[in-house]
């Protein structure tokens, strides 16, 4: 009987493994099959809609281009160094200049640019949304006052914000030697405008739905305003704040691609736009590589937030997914 039990247990585990490993793989195969079959049916002005194989080729092309560009860059600096060394040998007093490499950014450079931009927009949004959310959560009056404005601005599309942000940035952000390019500032601010709302609303709800006993504890202890926020309000609404932050980041990432397309910030959005305008036979395949990349990066951003949430959550029994 013991043996059969053990066998039964082994079978159950095997079943579990099949469920968690095999099912997603099967689903992925079916998806790729359907994609491949239906893509071959569609003929566009840029040639056939690329299937998985064509997209894979474009992905490796992009990788090759990246390394080729890096090699060119190193070669460029080596040439400069040589020339400078020669100059110095002839005349030790000579002035030496190192010119920066101005080759075009590769696909991977563009991913980095996109990540930096979304991060900037997201951080600004959080710095605005969490404090306002806390204040609105604490005061019923303020909540009633602000709620209509939030509800009004929340559904506005990034495409509607962008022209206004562009004009405002052009007018206000004037500098002879700007630290950031205007397209970067415009994209980041558009991200901020669109992604601050979930954090704001969730923070407000988290703060206002605090356990009444904890509020009473704070009152009995006569904690001052700041200590109350820092020791009681913030930790107790942390789970809701994180839920808001996760929603905000995924919205921000979605918004960023649109913003970069129009603002011409050299990130993934611009990559897609440029490929679209370029209209070569490879363009559609490269755009699909970008689409998959956007999806993967979005997924990774969400997982990162989840990891942070687990790290900072005091309620280890809560199931976070």
């Amino acid at each position: 009987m013991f043996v059969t039990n053990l066998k039964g247990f082994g079978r159950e585990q095997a079943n579990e493994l099949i469920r968690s490993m095999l099912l997603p793989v099967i689903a992925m195969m079916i998806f790729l099959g359907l994609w491949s079959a239906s893509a071959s049916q569609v003929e566009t002005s840029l040639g056939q809609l690329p299937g998985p194989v064509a997209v894979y080729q474009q992905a490796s092309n992009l990788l090759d281009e990246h390394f080729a560009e890096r090699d060119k860059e190193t070669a460029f600096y080596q040439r400069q160094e040589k020339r400078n060394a020669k100059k110095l040998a002839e005349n030790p007093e000579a002035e030496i200049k190192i010119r920066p490499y101005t080759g075009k950014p590769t696909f991977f450079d563009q991913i980095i640019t996109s990540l930096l931009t979304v991060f900037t927009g997201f951080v600004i949004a959080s710095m605005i949304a969490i404090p306002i959310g806390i204040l609105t959560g604490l005061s019923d009056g303020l909540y009633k006052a602000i709620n209509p404005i939030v509800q009004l601005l929340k559904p506005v599309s990034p495409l509607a914000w962008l022209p206004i942000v562009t004009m405002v940035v052009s007018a206000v952000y004037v500098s002879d030697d700007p630290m950031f390019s205007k397209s970067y500032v415009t994209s980041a601010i558009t991200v901020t405008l669109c992604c601050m709302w979930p954090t704001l609303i969730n923070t407000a709800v988290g703060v206002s739905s605090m356990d009444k006993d904890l509020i009473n504890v704070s009152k009995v202890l006569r904690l001052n305003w700041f200590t109350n926020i820092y020791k009681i309000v913030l930790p107790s609404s942390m789970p809701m704040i994180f839920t808001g932050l996760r929603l905000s980041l995924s919205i921000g990432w979605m918004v960023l691609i649109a913003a970069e397309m129009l603002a011409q910030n050299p990130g993934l959005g611009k990559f897609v736009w440029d490929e679209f305008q370029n209209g070569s036979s490879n363009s559609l395949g490269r755009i699909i590589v970008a689409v998959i990349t956007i999806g993967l990066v979005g997924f990774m951003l969400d997982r990162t937030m989840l990891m942070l949430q687990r790290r900072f959550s005091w309620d280890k029994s809560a199931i976070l997914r």
Partner: protein
Amino acid sequence: MKKEHLNISQVSMAFPTPTGSFLALDKVSLIIEEGEFVSLIGHSGCGKSTVLNVVAGLHQATEGGVVLDGKEVNEPGPDRAVVFQNHSLLPWLTAYQNVELAVKQVFGKTKSHSEMKDWIEHNLELVHMEHAMHKRPDEISGGMKQRVGIARALAMQPKVLLMDEPFGALDALTRAHMQESLMEIQNELNNTVIMITHDVDEAVLLSDRIVMMTNGPAATIGEILKVELERPRNRVQLADDTEYNRYRQRVLSFLYERQHVPVEKETPRLSVAGAEAA
């Protein structure tokens, strides 16, 4: 005669409702001496918690007021520490840190760092929680959480300790154990305590006086019973004691003969206690 310590004077409490104002308490008056242990007992919804909240300063009485050591109470403060029914520990802090928050708040300016540490540990030892000092609330049992809650309240060195059904959420054995601990602490520190309870045995066992409240609306004090049993009290010996049973009988007859159980607010635990008595 000990001096007057806490004076609850003509306290009335009305809450605004959509259909007009609802009078929850009607002219509750009670004078409590220093070191006295007073229980408030009554059916659910009779305003026991409201009395406690007024003394704590969490509610403002509509009429009348509370005077503690010659000063009127009009806001919450650590001199009237509250032990809540649901422990209300901060779940992200350990037992030690929970007590520390209170101690820093009350003694942050008068005690040194090491004195505070000793004081926190001393209070946790008092409630027998020294072994789980650095555990968080979700890692300890309900009774242990309530112990930490009591330690936190005691560590504030309150003039009055207010307990809102402190053992109501615990099982019978744990509750008995906690009552023993509370008597032990009370014997040592001789705090002034106001405790709300549903439990007749608990009231008789722990109290110097039992304040029985009539049913709301417009609840007020129905009868006050002075419990003059020798301390230390032992629950097993008292079970057969005629004096003890006479006190118990008095409270039960007040609750079940002279006061009707409000129909919609009857609690299961009360009806069980009633069945036992009958």
